[in-house]
Every structure is written in structure tokens, then in C-alpha cells.
């Protein structure tokens, strides 16, 4: 009688709760950059939301950090297949930032210092699903991880969580951002493995 054993190689990947298909766990925080790391002095930092009609609402660093902030713990999933579970952040919810912004736009383009962009549907930024974070693991967010502030939208692949964020443009039509224009998926759901166009 043949006995097939998996041996003692540890738990299968898919048995780890919270780990999407095709991902592996890491305890590091890998740094992925598509260009030089911008160093933004806080007195020159500004975050602007521009609506589809051209109305702008913006905050400087002092105004931004005076807004009600939340401490939150989320799992993050990079399209290059690492996942990090239980990461802790402090930031301002997009619900708070959008509170006094009048818009009927369904799509957004997130913009960063250095020119990076990524598109995220409006509904994926609201209802407690996204934050502009300025602390990670209790410390000020380091420049290599997107400091002074980055978007964190953890239910999508982490390229959507733009580092060095400086604004969100609200749009009536969806448009590709930096990686999406180069072949990555327009939406990027890690649970559906939406890595590349056509996935």
C-alpha cells in the first residue's frame, strides 16, 4: 500500500489565514522603487484633493496632522508575491478627507511627489478601506517606505498604496497610472490574483 506523505515541511501556503493565493509570508518590509526616493521637507509638503469639476481642497503638514487620525492594523500584499500580516499604521482615513469634498466621481488618480501615479476606484477609498498614513509601527514613516505620508489601501495589491503621496484627482473615467500603463492590472485584487492586464 502506497503511503503518500507531505512530510514535515510546514503548513501549506494556502492554509495560512489571511494569505491570498500565490503569496508567501515575509517578516521584513521589502523596498520597491521605480525611481529616486524623494526627500520632502515637511514645510513644503502639501496634500490636495481635486474634484472632477476642478475644485481643490488641500492641507499643509500641520493642518493634515491635526485632523482626526486612526491607528489601524492591516495585512499588506505586494504583487511581487510577498505578504506581511498585521502591520500597524497611523493615518487619516479617506472618509475624513472626503467629508467636505463634493464629488460624484467614480474613479481617482493618486499622485505622488516624484511623478508616480496609480488609479483606484472611488469606492475602494471610502468606508474605512483607505488611509493616508504617516506612521508605521509607531515611528514616523521612513522615506524609503513612502514618508512623510503614503496611501494605504490594503485590500488591493500594494503598488496601489502610493508612496510619497501628494494628492488625489477625482475622475469620471478610469485611466491607468504608472504601473497600470506598463501592463499591470487596472484594479489589482490580490484574492483574485489580478496582477497583469487580462488576469
Amino acid at each position, binding site marked *: 500500500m502506497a503511503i503518500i506523505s507531505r512530510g514535515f515541511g510546514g503548513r501549506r501556503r494556502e492554509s495560512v489565514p489571511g494569505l491570498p493565493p500565490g503569496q508567501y509570508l515575509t517578516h521584513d518590509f521589502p523596498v520597491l522603487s521605480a525611481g529616486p526616493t524623494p526627500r520632502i521637507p515637511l514645510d513644503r509638503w502639501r496634500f490636495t484633493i481635486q474634484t472632477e469639476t476642478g475644485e481643490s481642497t488641500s492641507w499643509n503638514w500641520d493642518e493634515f496632522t491635526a485632523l482626526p487620525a486612526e491607528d489601524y492594523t492591516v495585512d499588506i500584499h505586494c504583487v511581487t508575491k510577498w505578504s506581511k500580516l498585521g502591520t500597524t499604521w497611523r493615518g487619516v482615513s479617506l472618509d475624513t478627507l472626503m467629508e467636505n469634498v463634493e464629488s460624484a466621481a467614480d474613479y481617482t488618480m493618486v499622485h505622488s511627489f516624484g*511623478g508616480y501615479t496609480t488609479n483606484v476606484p472611488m469606492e475602494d477609498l471610502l468606508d474605512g478601506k483607505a488611509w493616508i498614513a504617516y506612521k508605521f509601527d509607531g515611528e514616523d514613516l521612513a522615506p524609503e517606505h513612502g514618508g512623510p505620508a503614503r496611501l494605504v489601501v490594503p485590500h488591493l495589491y500594494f503598488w496601489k498604496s502610493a508612496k510619497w503621496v501628494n494628492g488625489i484627482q477625482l475622475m469620471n473615467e478610469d485611466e491607468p497610472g504608472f504601473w497600470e500603463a506598463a501592463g499591470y492590472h487596472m484594479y489589482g485584487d490580490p484574492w483574485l490574483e489580478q496582477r497583469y492586464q487580462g488576469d
Partner: protein
Amino acid sequence: MSDPDDRAPVEATTLDGNAMAGDLRELFAVDVTAARYKCAGCGHADAVATLMLWGAPTGRVARCPHCSDVVLRVVRAPDRVFLDLHGCVRLEVPLADS
């Protein structure tokens, strides 16, 4: 001023991408790093080999050394390669036998 109706019949241009096979094979069978790019951002022109390369695991990003704008990007999926030339106005490829 020419009348749009004077243009050649549409049939003369209804070729698909297969008709470019010879041209593209000639372009991409060569070492493209020897080709000269022209940056869409600042107009700087030099050999592709001189671009500043950022090798993020998500994809290769080649930036103009003059203005740091992105000139070309290569994304490798398991079954496909995407080449994005948004930031490149022109590629000038030297021919081997000229």
C-alpha cells in the same frame, strides 16, 4: 488644400500588424541598448545603454539621465513581456550592414 475624399481608397491601408513583421524583426533582433532614444520629457538623446535603470521587482524602469523622466519600462509577466515606450519620442536603431 486637399479634399478628404481625394485620399487613397481605404483598401490600400487595410493591412494588419503581420505586414510589419519584417520591419519589427529587423528592429528587435538587434541589440536595442545600442539604439539612440529621444526623451519625450526633455528631448535629450543618447544610447539606450546610458539610461538610468531602476530594477524594481515589479518591472524595469529606465529614466533619462538628463531629466529623470521615465523613457521606457519593461514588465515581465510569466507568459508575456510588456514594453512601454510612453516616454520615448523616437528610437534610432543602427543597422548592422550600413
